[in-house]
């Protein structure tokens, strides 16, 4: 038995038949040109990628710059604790919670509609509906998100609110409920479509495994598909939440723009976004403290969406699809 | 793997075959012993018994061979496993031939009994000795096979000379007998074949032993002269 130390392996004797010198020289030539081109392209791509970062930097810069001068007038403490929001009034109060409550309430109402309905629709489309049904209904549903939101606003105000008033005669003409409900419907496609994608992406083999055990569709969906697609579904929810929080026109039109600190959806309320759009369209002199409030509000909104996105990021990391 | 499951099925099949080989070996050994006994005691029944066993041995050869090819077809044996299967195949061939020799002896006995050479004096002791040597060799070879014991197998191979020498001696004795009394020629020729058969048993035992070496060491030492043996086995 010959146990050879590595260097006892003999060196080659026959020179390489293919190529040889010329071939290697050719490779070397190609290499130079290639490396230069690659470096240039990478630089260009990096430049493009930095645009989105620059956008954020720009946004943050503008928001913070204006907010700084805002907070030099309004103590942060007041901003966070005051229970009134009347920045444009003579007796100005800057309690962001008032707008936050509107934003959160309207979002909650919307999500209370969008998440259950969206999820059920996703389950239905992915696990129950036939191929044809899915292929027709899904694009149709996605159209819901293509309708300009201002149209939803008037729909909420002119159609949904009167309908609701038949059920709750006490309901004011402007209320978070109706705006939230319509917003929920508008968000359904985001939740449903993305969740459905995530569920579709669950490999058929997992489903087959479950059916082969004698499960029904429902059991398969609940026990296998939804857990497997959880991170995708969570992303869909997060996107839905972001949409709800950032939605402007529906609330501006139908929710009443009334800055009161309330979590009651049956009342009118103002949200951060509707406040911003209101001011942006208005007659306020630029540079006034009233005008700066929209930046402070915008900053709060950004922080809020950032929180949700961070949560979503964490969720996705934590529950990566593992099948 | 914590559960020791692996390949147990294959191992089970292998050991089932090995068992049958040993069974065949046992039968053949017994056959040879019986044949010698029948010769020494000129017993018709014993001879018949030997021929009886012969059929079982033949059947075993066929069965084991079929099992072997089925195992090869189904499991992809390599290395020692494959060598074992090939070794077994050659072993049962040898065993069957040992059985044949025993049967030959038995048939000779039958002829002797039926013939006229009744009161003849035979070199029984010498025949008996050769028979002892042959069966011992066979037993030791089978033993070596059962335990895949290379040392014992080599022993068997080296001792084959002794049987050959014994056979030569016996042959000379028989020729002397024949020359002394030409009436015994016919019977003596029969005995010559018996002696030859016993010598062949020894040869087969040696072949068995060679297979043991092949199985364990992967070295095919057939046709290797005795001197070269030890180095070939390294």
């Amino acid at each position, binding site marked *: 038995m010959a146990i050879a130390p590595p260097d006892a392996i003999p060196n080659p004797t026959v020179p390489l038949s293919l190529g040889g010198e010329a071939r290697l020289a050719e490779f070397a030539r190609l290499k130079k040109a290639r490396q230069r081109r690659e470096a240039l392209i990478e630089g260009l791509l990096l430049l493009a990628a930095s645009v989105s970062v620059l956008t954020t930097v720009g946004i943050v810069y503008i928001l913070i710059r204006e907010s700084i001068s805002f907070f030099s007038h309004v103590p942060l403490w007041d901003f966070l604790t005051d229970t009134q929001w009347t920045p444009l009034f003579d007796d100005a109060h800057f309690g962001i919670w008032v707008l936050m409550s509107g934003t959160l309430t309207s979002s909650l109402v919307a999500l209370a509609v969008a998440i259950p309905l969206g999820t059920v629709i996703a389950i239905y489309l992915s696990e129950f509906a036939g191929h044809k049904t899915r292929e027709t209904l899904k694009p149709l549903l996605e159209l819901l998100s293509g309708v300009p939101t201002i149209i939803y606003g008037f729909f909420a105000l002119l159609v949904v609110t009167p309908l609701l008033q038949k059920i709750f005669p006490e309901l004011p003409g402007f209320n978070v409920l109706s705006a939230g409900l319509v917003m929920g419907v508008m968000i359904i496609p985001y939740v449903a479509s993305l969740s459905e994608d995530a569920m579709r992406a669950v*490999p058929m083999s997992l489903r087959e495994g479950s059916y082969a*055990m*004698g*499960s029904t569709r429902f059991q398969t969906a609940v*026990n296998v598909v939804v857990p497997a697609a959880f991170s995708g579904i969570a992303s869909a929810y997060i996107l839905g939440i972001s949409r709800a929080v950032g939605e402007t026109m529906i609330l501006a039109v139908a929710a009443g723009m009334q800055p009161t600190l309330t979590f009651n959806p049956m009342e009118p309320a103002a949200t951060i976004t509707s406040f911003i759009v209101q001011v942006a369209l208005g007659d306020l002199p630029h540079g006034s403290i009233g005008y700066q409030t929209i930046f402070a509000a915008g900053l709060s909104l950004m922080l809020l969406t950032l929180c949700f996105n961070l949560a979503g990021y964490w969720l996705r990391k934590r529950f990566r699809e593992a099948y | 793997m914590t559960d020791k*499951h692996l390949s147990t099925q294959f191992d089970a099949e292998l050991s089932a075959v090995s068992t049958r080989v040993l069974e065949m070996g046992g039968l053949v050994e017994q056959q040879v012993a019986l044949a010698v006994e029948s010769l020494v005691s000129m017993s018709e029944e014993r001879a018949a018994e030997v021929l009886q066993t012969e059929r079982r041995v033949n059947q075993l050869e066929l069965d084991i061979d079929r099992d072997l090819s089925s195992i090869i*077809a*189904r*499991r992809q044996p390599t290395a020692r496993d494959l060598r074992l299967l090939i070794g077994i195949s050659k072993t049962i061939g040898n065993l069957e031939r040992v059985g044949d020799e025993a049967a030959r002896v038995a048939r000779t006995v039958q002829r002797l009994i039926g013939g006229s050479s009744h009161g003849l004096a035979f070199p029984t002791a010498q025949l008996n000795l050769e028979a002892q040597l042959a069966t011992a060799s066979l037993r030791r070879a089978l033993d070596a096979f059962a335990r895949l014991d290379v040392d014992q197998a080599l022993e068997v191979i080296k001792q084959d000379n002794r049987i050959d020498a014994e056979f030569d001696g016996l042959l000379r004795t028989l020729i002397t007998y024949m020359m002394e009394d030409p009436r015994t020629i016919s019977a003596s020729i029969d005995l010559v074949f018996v002696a030859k058969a016993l010598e062949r048993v020894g040869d087969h035992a040696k072949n068995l032993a060679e297979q043991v070496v092949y199985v364990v060491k992967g070295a095919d030492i057939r046709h290797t002269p005795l001197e070269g043996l030890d180095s070939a086995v390294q």
Partner: protein
Amino acid sequence: MPSTITLPQNPPPLKAESKNLDFYYGDFKALKGINMPVYENKVTALIGPSGCGKSTFLRCFNRMHDLYPGHRYDGSIHLYPDEVDVLHKSVDPIEVRMRISMVFQKPNPFPKSIFENVAYGLKVRGERNRSVLEDKVEAALKGAALWNEVKDRLDDLAVNMSGGQQQRLCIARALATDPEIILFDEPTSALDPIATGSIEELVGEIKQKVTVLIVTHNMQQAARVSDYTAYMYLGELMEFGETNDIFMKPKRKETEDYITGRFG
């Protein structure tokens, strides 16, 4: 072309039998008049070139095709002793699947704990009693030769196990519900020889309790694990017989060409 079917001399009791089975994917006829017995507590292997319909045939037994649109069964597969035709319209596929389990090509454990995976079939069957579940899970894992490896981490996620372990888990999952037949569709093609060996051992052992139908691309695997082998070609059953005969003395030239690799 009629199939060459060599029935054993003393056939064991029948567990199932396909009779004149045709199967269509839309307009495409994937199975053509298959007649084949499945013997109780035996392993029957389905071999044949890619696309010959092995998987299609196997998946008829538990009506897996029902999950997809555009399928059609003609003919029948009878399940003994009660002789129910599993393909019949009036028969609930879920009921069929409760009697006939399946193990797939790629291990497909659910993204749940090991325990939940094995207990899944029982839960689907309405079993809620924790101690009963525990007992059955343990028995199934033992049956799948996995108990010793996982008994201390039943709550770990199944997907964190190795491929071979996952496949044994899937077998345990299938075993847990005491099925009458287990279908295997190339259960080891994603595994290495060691893991493959352990799965094959397992198949050899579980056949004492259930009837096994196995599709495999690996000729030697079919030869190793099965008692009967069926050779399929272009949707037809070419030859069926005892495995030893098929591999040592195939009756048909086509079968021989295939198993010796001279096909095509």
